[in-house]
């Protein structure tokens, strides 16, 4: 497969608002990204605008406040998608096509049961949740992420284990919780922990871990490694010049976030 043949579906509904930069990120690594409204997949758009999920190679859920997040972050988007194109979505994931969710997109993937998905590619009910930040507030601030993937996640394929990236956070509900007391250990055993918040020195206490997520988890993948969700926004640091402290000095003009998108492209192109 060539880069220009890779078709990305950047899926949105009312309240999605990071779709432009998400599409740009995929285009910067050579893919063809299309912003697709959920109505275009569910068949309720005019004929010429209808789209089939099957025709895409990557599915991406951008950040935002889908349906206002008034019920629970991501809940309405997930419910709508599951009821309208649930089987197609399951087929997409089971075909091991890459699925990315950032911020609200991560929340949607958890609500859909696509993450952490330890027992089934698409759990019938959510098995984890992204809770309110410990601060009780929306937090927009830089964060440092260490790549802890040991090779399974297709979105971290090119990022060396232990490498630290500067990727900003902006959310009110980012604390990954589960009823399962062994949750973190199981994620760890399955190589599902992709990114952890770290501090420049010592433990990642607040604000370095901006939400209080256990074990400083910032992003996880499914057991197959093709579905990844993360709270921080790699699509906001595609160039060095949107990094938080670039005026203090830098080596490369490339932003730290591009590695996530390049990884999945390298995975598809081989």
């Amino acid at each position, binding site marked *: 497969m060539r880069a220009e043949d890779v078709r990305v579906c950047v899926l949105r509904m*009312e*309240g999605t*608002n*990071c779709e*432009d*930069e998400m599409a*740009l990120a995929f285009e910067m690594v050579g893919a063809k990204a299309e912003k697709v*409204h959920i*109505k275009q997949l569910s068949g309720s*758009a*005019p004929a010429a*605008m209808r789209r089939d999920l099957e025709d895409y190679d990557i599915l991406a859920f951008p*950040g*935002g*406040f889908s*349906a*206002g*997040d*008034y019920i629970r972050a991501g809940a309405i988007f997930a419910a709508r998608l599951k009821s309208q194109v649930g089987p197609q979505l399951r087929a997409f994931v089971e075909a091991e096509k890459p699925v990315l969710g950032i911020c609200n997109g991560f929340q949607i993937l958890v609500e859909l049961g696509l993450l952490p998905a330890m027992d089934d590619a698409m759990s019938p009910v959510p098995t984890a949740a992204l809770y309110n930040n410990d*601060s*009780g*507030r*929306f*937090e*927009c*601030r*830089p964060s*440092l992420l260490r790549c802890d993937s040991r090779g399974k996640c297709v979105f971290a394929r090119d990022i060396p284990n232990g490498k630290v990236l*500067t990727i*900003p956070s*902006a959310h009110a509900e980012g604390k990954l919780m589960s009823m399962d007391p062994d949750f973190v250990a199981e994620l760890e055993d399955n190589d599902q922990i992709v990114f952890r918040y770290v501090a*420049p020195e010592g433990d990642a206490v*607040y*604000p*370095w871990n901006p939400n209080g997520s256990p074990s400083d988890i910032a992003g996880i993948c499914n057991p197959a490694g093709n579905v990844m969700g993360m709270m921080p*926004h790699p*699509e*906001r*640091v*595609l160039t060095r*010049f*949107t990094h*938080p*402290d670039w*005026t*203090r*000095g830098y080596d490369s*003009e490339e932003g730290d976030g591009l590695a996530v998108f390049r990884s999945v492209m390298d995975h598809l192109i081989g």
Partner: protein
Amino acid sequence: MSADRLMRRRDAPYSLYDIDILSADDDELKQLSSEMGLSLSLEEMKAIAEYFSKEGRVPTDVELQSLGQAWSEHCCYKSSKNILKQFVFALDHPDILSRGDAGVMAFDDDYGYALRIESHNHPSAIEPYGGAATGIGGILRDVICMGAQPIGLVDPLCFGPPDTEEEIPAGIKHPRYLMNGVVSGIRDYGNRMGIPTVSGGFFFDDRYTGNCLVNVGCLGIVKRKDLALNYAGGPGEVMILIGGRTGRDGIHGVTFASADLTSTSDEDSRGAVQLGDPITKEPTLHACLEVNEKGLITGMKDLGGGGLSCVVGEMALDAGCGADVDLDRVPLKEEGLAPWEIWVSESQERMMVTCKPENVDAILEIFDMWDVLATPIARTTDVPRTRLFWKGEKIFDMDLEFLTGGPVYDRPYVLPEVSGKAGEEFPRLPSDREVILSLLSDPNVASKEWAIRQYDHEVRAGTVIKPMVGRMNMTGPGDATVLMPVPGRWKGLAAAVGCNPWFCAEDPYRGGKAGIDEACRNIAATGARPHAFTDCLNFGNPEKPERLGEFREAVRGLGDICMALGLPIPSGNVSLYNEAPGGKFILPTPMILGTGLIDDVRKAVSADFKEDGNLIYMIGETKDEMGASLLFRRYGGKGGEVPDSDPEQLKERIDRLLKAMDAGCVRACHDCSDGGMAVAVAEMCISGGIGAEVSLEAMGAMDDRRKMYSESCSRWIAEVPMPRSKEFESFLGSQARLIGKVGGDSLRIAGEDIPVDELRRAWSDPIWDIMGGKA
């Protein structure tokens, strides 16, 4: 006494009154204006009676309500128009692409950028969360209806001291409650819309306790070919109402905004505050931009103050047409609204577009795709009148010139007495160490991180210089925010607020100039060249000559400095009647949002000190201008010269500074404002996490404390690497003086040695301590 005898209910299945103003005496006219909530004066009521006498009939309640909206201060600028005409309307610039609902300036050969600021003061004083949120909604619509994609929100706010323990008068809400509500409203609306809140400001003074100010600004980017008009293309077109349904929320918003607040405004006017819904607005934004880009519409305008009653007339009149409206077709939130309520409601999230009849279906299909309501409700005509029909029955028929013309007044004013050197009383001060820490902890200077981090200031991925700068999670204050609006292009747009209401209170002319000077300083500090301004003029009751005198002088100051700088004000807003119950008036507050351009954002400069051993320069001249300074306010100084901006010097310094920055000589730059050079240097230490050694000798012959704390205009602190110092000095000439060196972990100045950690705590903690929630 009541005006009931004048009201005759028409025999119809809906609520409609004919009102016999022709037979009313003066008292009855006044009574009528008050009972109907029109806020019109006796003279205005008489002019209306005369109009209908000529028409040979009595008006309906819909017509009178419509006039109440159109002739309000908020809509027709009746007290301010002549003053604005005299001093600012004439400012011109070849880069102005439009002076529509938002101003639009050239960005590059392909793009323009939109800018606008307006107030949402009175609604926010009553219901801070909803008032602020709908303020954001309104300013976004002003930018969208230029065809522009909003790219940044800027929200300067003024409150009473949030930690005040004084008793708050009846009808007023505590400043802390207001501040919390307003910031939450901006956060929830801006974040949900996905438009970054990139700049702003907080101004605290007890003169804002009774009447807070919530100013909301917005920037947008538009391809020049997509620049939209705000009026119809001619007669025979269709007007389509877009977005939210119409309800009883926001009735009489503009008349409420055009009178002083009273102790019972809370109960009386809650219904004047609109309800916001960003999740209706978000797809509305996409759909409006889509129908514009596809060339399907001829004009687009937002429904703001006055609702339908203002937008229909203005879109028709500016096209030289009239309009026929089927009012019964307007989609409603609830049944049973009277026609006049529908006509003047300010329900949120609504836009109007005009189009050729053949494009209606294509437009409706696009809005349907986005699940946004769109309803054709009117047609433009070749008769210059607005006519309303309710199921075919005519209920309104007025000449558009008369309706939208409105009165214009030259109200009496008196010029204010200004502060000067003669009456100066320099306060007794503690040690400079104590003074510097105290100034840093003043709420007007202290860190606003509590608010800034609740606003998503990075969504859209274009924020290059952020509102807080320096080391990650140990940041300090920035100057301007720099955005990269077009992906793939390095050209940047800088935005910054400038305003010093205390200067304006002591000398409104100099204060007006100082606000522009400050915006320019902030913009230039990041490496951008000042390009345009939009202003929100918040003042008191214009029917009081002292208040109008302040307004006139401040506007004259704005006009003079912009003329000298050759920079325009392509959009703006006036908010008068900012007075608290009991007549306590606000500080005169001409809030400026300035924009600047930088060719390559990779050359932008931030305010944090970078490196041990670099040199520190003061750019500009420090004068004995202590009037209204933070030092005097905090320690009880009186009088003194208010800082006066010399635009020729400002221009020259900006030119020289930008050349030095373009050559890469400047590692950090920060403007000197509240608290003077001492606070500016301290802030650069805080954000850089490094100390500095400063000598005051090179700054001339004044006493040290004036050198440290004077707030003279047009000054910056710059950090320059030693090997670049000769080059820097050749760019700046005599405009820069070497005053010190970066290094160590303390600020050494005037014999004091203050650890950077102590500076940081003094600056970081105060607002967190007041608002709560510190980690």
